[in-house]
């Protein structure tokens, strides 16, 4: 009989489909795992609602549970319970090392342009805070584009959500 711990361990091996340096567990998108009567019930929270990786994540979770000899029922929870604050410390460090600046902490109110233009964002390459916003939008919904004025490196900034 499969246990919840085994399922969590297996999920920790599944890379994010778009940013494979972090696992789905490190990304914090697995909200719960419940095992009863040999059935594995998983709650998954999308990062952004329009994230095209969501279907790939669901498939990967089902396959991973199947490899443990059980059947999974993956439910997508579309509420505000996921935020970028759920990315684990290990996940944040892996993002930074791969050139993605990890998200700033979520605040009570929704982010404002003035916050995105603040000097509080660190370049993941040289750690400078002399960076500027190039584009609120990037190659996926979850990323913005910034430029480091110290090492002159453009980089991707995880959006706070």
């Amino acid at each position, binding site marked *: 009989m499969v246990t919840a711990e085994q399922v969590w361990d297996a999920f920790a091996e599944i890379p994010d489909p778009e940013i494979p340096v972090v696992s789905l567990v490190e990304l914090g998108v697995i909200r719960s795992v419940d095992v009863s009567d040999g059935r594995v019930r998983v709650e998954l929270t*999308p990062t*952004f*609602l*329009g*994230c*095209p990786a969501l279907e790939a994540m669901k498939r990967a979770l089902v396959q991973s549970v199947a490899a443990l000899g059980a059947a999974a029922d993956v439910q997508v929870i*579309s*509420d*505000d*319970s996921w*935020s970028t604050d759920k990315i684990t410390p290990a996940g944040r460090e892996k993002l930074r090392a791969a050139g993605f600046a990890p998200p700033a902490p979520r605040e009570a109110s*929704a*982010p*404002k*342009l003035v916050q*995105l233009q603040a000097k509080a964002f660190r370049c993941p390459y040289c750690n400078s805070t002399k960076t500027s916003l*190039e*584009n*609120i*939008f*990037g*190659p*996926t*919904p979850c990323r913005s*584009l910034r430029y480091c004025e110290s090492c002159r490196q453009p980089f991707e900034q995880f*959006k706070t*959500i």
Partner: protein
Amino acid sequence: MNELLLGLADDELLIGWRDSEWTGIAPVLEEDVAFSSIAQNEIGHARAVYELLTDDADALAFDRPLDEYRCAPLVELRLLDWARTIARRWLYEVADEIRIAALMEDADARVAGLAAKIDREEAYHRMHAEMWRERLAGVPQFQAAVEELWPYALGVLPPPHREAFAARTGRAQVDAIERDMHTGELAELWNEMTLVRRSEPAGAQW
């Protein structure tokens, strides 16, 4: 069927579709990326709202005859003009913020939860729209476009929200173009949007 939520989902689907028409041809590369990303988010919101209403979001989104869409005429318009496109984005985002804020207080926890999630994402769309509004504020084409689209924009919101909308945009209330009618531009869009579903009733595979 909850008409308010269906209207919201249809608005998000159509504006996403219209915004994606800038993919590849926006005036600067940053806006190509921005409009593509915004479009993807809006269509994601449409899907999530359709999923609240039905088990088969694709069927609800694409299998209805044209006259059963509940979208506001504002989002139907094909605007191959930057000033009009920005005017629509700005007006739509202000209206959408008012509507989503009301849904965040909804008695149904699923609706309120989804609205809160949508609001977090829309914050980035609002910044983008506001940035462009400031940039174009003194440009006559933009002012004319806001004037032209204002009656359409009012039609996005139910009457009780319109006073707040007018106050937020610094405009006077006029007769709204309501969502009980469709513009001539919806037919072509409907044909395009539903083509795959109509051609492959069993479901297309990639």
